[in-house]
């Protein structure tokens, strides 16, 4: 393999902590195999840096198989890079060519402040979930069998599709308004479509949208960019459903 891999120039955002100013720094990596994932390429770079006694590039990752939603890099102007339907950990180096310059930046949003280098604070999503992204279930031991509630297949499928959102934040990173609507609408839809979610439907959508606004995310302009860059193909239809749920809940709210 030696000598046959790609030589790349990386332009990476470096920022030592939340309060320091950051800047783009150039790095070179050599002999990168096309079979590597993007994160493996980053590992190669970090080994180089460590062996030179320099500070490695901090980036989020966990499962490295596209299910946890931790990896989060803005690569060459696109969230999770140029491929479609994949997270950064699933992005192959074969999407790039020998001699390429690759820009690597953190998610940019006022609601996602940088912690270090490419790591951003996405706890805003957790606070939105805490505001209503759940159903209250009796866990006293006599829980009802899930199959006792009939659910139309179409609804179950749509709820499942919405539930595949891994909370990575690529939608926010991509949106020109840094709007979190795709994420929030996936979480609202997933429960709004099922009978178990109906009980708290009204407060859920109002509280989650309220929290979303408080976190400082932008508004939806229906550019559709989020849907294109979302690794899980979450549909824009969810936003229409959330707007519908919100309107319904607002009109009928007690206060």
């Amino acid at each position, binding site marked *: 393999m030696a000598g046959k891999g790609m030589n790349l120039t990386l*332009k990476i*955002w470096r920022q030592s902590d939340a309060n320091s100013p950051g800047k*783009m720094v150039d790095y070179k990596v050599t002999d990168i195999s096309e079979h590597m994932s993007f994160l493996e390429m980053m590992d190669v770079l970090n080994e180089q840096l460590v062996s030179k006694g320099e500070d490695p590039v901090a980036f989020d990752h966990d499962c490295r198989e596209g299910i946890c939603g931790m990896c989060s890099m*803005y690569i*060459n*102007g*696109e969230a999770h890079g*140029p491929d479609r339907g994949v997270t950064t950990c699933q992005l192959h180096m074969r999407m790039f060519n020998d001699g390429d310059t690759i*820009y690597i*930046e953190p998610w*940019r*949003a*006022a*609601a996602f402040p940088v912690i270090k280098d490419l790591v951003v604070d996405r706890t805003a999503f957790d606070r939105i979930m805490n505001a209503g992204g759940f159903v209250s279930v009796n866990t006293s031991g006599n829980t009802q069998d899930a199959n006792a509630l009939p659910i139309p297949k179409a609804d179950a499928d749509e709820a499942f599709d919405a539930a595949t959102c891994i909370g990575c934040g690529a939608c926010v990173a*991509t949106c*020109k*308004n*840094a*709007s979190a*609507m795709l994420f929030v609408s996936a979480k609202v839809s997933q429960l709004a479509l099922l009978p178990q979610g109906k009980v708290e439907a009204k*407060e859920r959508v*109002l*509280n989650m*949208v*309220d929290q*979303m*606004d408080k976190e*400082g*995310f*932008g*508004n*939806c*302009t*229906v*550019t*559709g*960019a989020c849907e*294109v*860059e979302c690794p899980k193909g979450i549909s*824009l*239809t969810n*936003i*229409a*459903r*959330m*707007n*519908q749920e*919100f*309107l319904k*809940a*607002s*009109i009928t*709210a*007690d*206060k």
Partner: protein
Amino acid sequence: MANTGSSSTSIGRKLIMAASGLFLVIFLLQHFLINFTSVIDEKTFNEISHFMGTNVLIQFVMQPILIAGVIIHFVMGFILEMKNTKARNVKYAMNKPSANSSWMSRNMIYTGAVILGFLGLHFYDFWVPEIDLKYVQGLEGSPTRYFHELQHRFEDPVRVAIYCVSFVLLALHLMHGFGAAFQSVGVTNKRYLTGLQKFGKIFAIVVPLGFIFIALFHHLNQ
């Protein structure tokens, strides 16, 4: 208790934007149909214009509603733009929005701002003289003046050029806006949404082109 669907929530603002936008679309169609009669028959155009200009319901109910609709729409547009700019406080060093969204969808504020400028000019050209004549000077005005005024306005090639460019930008505004509004108000039926969005695209091209046609027609038939 959380905020409900008022102008203080993101979705509330969005619903106001969509509702006012759709209202303006209906107004635009009505305006287009009336203007189009000027190409077909001078007398019909004068009659309809006279009716619109003197009918109490239209003058004192519909006209204020329309002006309010325009103001709500563009003020909300600027508010949203300010909030959205704040939500992305640090820009990307390298961004490729063309990979995932249309130019129209990303530039609504700019196409909208040009339309606003045009509306200012349009008010100055047609509306201010009418209001001045009818309500300031308190004159009757000839019921056949409308056609000649229209023709007169389209004499100057610079005016016609400004008019045409503005309508191209309105077409771009609506090519995104019309379809987007249905999404905003919560249409989830995929068949309806696809149909409405297709209709919106056609409308966005045909109606502004129609306005351009009317302007050129009168410019060339002085």
